[in-house]
């Protein structure tokens, strides 16, 4: 256990990192809060003084606000669902001994290393393009009319692209978790008469619950802020405008920094609500 001395030494050694983190986070946060109360229009006169709660009421009363919150939540939920379900299945599959295991694992993990902008462009131009995309060819092969993915199934397309990027992460975490499962537990269950399906639900899945919790928490944080994938595919059209994208439009397209900052504060609140909600449901998996 830590002695008095080692504790104070630890504090001193941690101080630079804590200081850096604080500055890193606090400065932008304070600036956002400050601008959200200012009437700041860079191209129309600059900082025009104090605005009270004007920015906040204007941001919420905009007809785009609630749909954008909803879109954000749908995208987060969809990505979580796909990456957890397929992540668990892939992890179980990859855990089985097979020929060329090393290469298969690297291939599965590869999408994680592709930059979001690049992967979104690849999906947009090579897969989802209604004329030349692979999916369009597939549709035509079966005699169907190609789907205009980014227009007719826009939100689903975004979910698909983002899931494709996050699936490797989920698979990787879940694979390491599944490898730590004591094989004697599965054998004991087998002797106890559990079918393969029962073994999965009663033994493997509970064993994975902690890893799943971690994947859910981390992915939620990142997917709430998803931007590049929307920017290069639909540009926020066809109902794919998330809260982040709305803020971007307010700041850069409408050149209203005060309004955008107010949106930023709402984004913080939304993230916290989601976080509290998640911790309530899955957080208990993390203790014990």
């Amino acid at each position, binding site marked *: 256990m830590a002695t008095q001395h080692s504790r104070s030494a630890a504090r001193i050694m941690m101080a630079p990192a804590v200081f850096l983190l604080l500055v890193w986070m606090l400065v932008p946060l304070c600036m956002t809060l400050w601008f959200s109360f200012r009437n700041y229009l860079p191209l129309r006169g600059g900082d025009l003084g104090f605005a009270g709660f004007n920015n906040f009421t204007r941001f919420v009363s905009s007809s785009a606000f609630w749909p954008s919150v909803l879109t954000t939540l749908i995208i987060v939920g969809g990505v979580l669902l796909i990456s957890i379900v397929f992540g668990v299945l892939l992890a179980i599959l990859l855990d089985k001994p097979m020929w060329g295991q090393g290469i298969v694992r690297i291939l599965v993990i590869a999408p994680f290393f592709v930059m979001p902008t690049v992967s979104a462009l690849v999906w947009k131009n090579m897969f989802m393009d209604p004329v030349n995309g692979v999916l369009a060819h597939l549709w035509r092969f079966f005699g169907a009319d190609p789907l205009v993915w980014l227009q007719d199934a826009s939100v689903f397309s975004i979910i698909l692209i983002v899931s494709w990027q996050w699936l490797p992460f989920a698979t990787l975490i879940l694979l390491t978790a599944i490898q730590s499962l004591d094989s004697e537990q599965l*054998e004991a269950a*087998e*002797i*106890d008469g559990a079918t393969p399906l029962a073994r999965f639900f*009663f033994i493997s899945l509970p064993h994975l619950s902690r890893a799943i919790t971690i994947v859910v928490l981390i992915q939620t944080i990142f997917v709430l802020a998803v931007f590049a994938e929307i920017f290069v595919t639909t540009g926020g059209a066809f109902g794919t405008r998330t809260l982040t994208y709305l803020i971007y439009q307010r700041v850069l397209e409408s050149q209203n920094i005060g309004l955008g900052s107010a949106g930023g504060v709402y984004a913080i609140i939304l993230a916290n609500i989601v976080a509290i909600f998640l911790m309530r449901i899955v957080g208990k998996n993390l203790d014990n």
Partner: protein
Amino acid sequence: MGRIQLKQVKKAFGDVVVIPPLDLEIVDGEFVVFVGPSGCGKSTLLRLIAGLEDTTSGVIEIDGEDATALPPAKRRLAMVFQSYALYPHMTVRKNIAFPLRMAKMDQAEQDRRIEAAAKALNLTDYLHRRPGQLSGGQRQRVAIGRAIVREPAAFLFDEPLSNLDAALRVGMRMEISELHKKLKTTMVYVTHDQVEAMTMADKIVVLQAGVIEQVGSPLDLYHTPRNKFVAGFIGSPRMNLVEGTEAAKHNATTIGVRPEHIDISTTEGLWQGTVGVAEHLGSDTFLHVHGVPGCDPVTVRIAGDVALNHGDTVHLTPRADQIHKFDAQGLRIS
């Protein structure tokens, strides 16, 4: 019922033959112990019986029916693992209930069996706890509880006590023996602990490199070991195996004398030597005597406390009627 027969059962992992074709019969209600040095295939044999490993060739019959191809669940056997293999996220009650739940037994019957098992194993106060909140001995009892509620045809134990401390091991040993007396169900028990094997078994199976060296009651093995390996393996401390001219006097390649069958004197005897290490246990004294030709050191066991220490000269005389003789192949000469 729980009669298990192995007929020419063979197991190989790839090219490595772990168990060459082997025959064994386990009678209903018997307590059979597999002993042998580490890596000799005890666990593998047990797992073959359980159905966790496939036989390479040969037939396993349970109660006269061919069970070679049956999945583990269908063999009506219960297994207790060395690591206990409890389900960590379930309470003790759910752990014990698991096999019943898998068998879709009705709730009232489940409860009745769980209560009975918990009472028999002193687990009633712990039913709501998780395995992580139990001591090693309690976990072991939960594992046994999970096995007995199924009322299986036979129990399989793989070194169930090796993770417990010495005192607890003695206690659990008795509990398992009593359980066997009460249930009268076949038990197959793997261990490398001498004392467990000698005290618990109706029948001991001594294995070496997958081959059965001898099958018999504990005292059978103690009094008439079939070969040098069994002679050296059964009994603690180990039997002294003397070679050379001393053995030739008995027309054998090797003679064996157990430490407790050697008389010791400070004045006269057959063999002379000096005491190396003297272990004074209070109840017994173990002397390791150097200088006897053909066996170094000779271990001698003397009841009670004796005033002999390092460096003392002693004379040893093996009791003539307790000398085991072995030929050049290591087999017993009757």
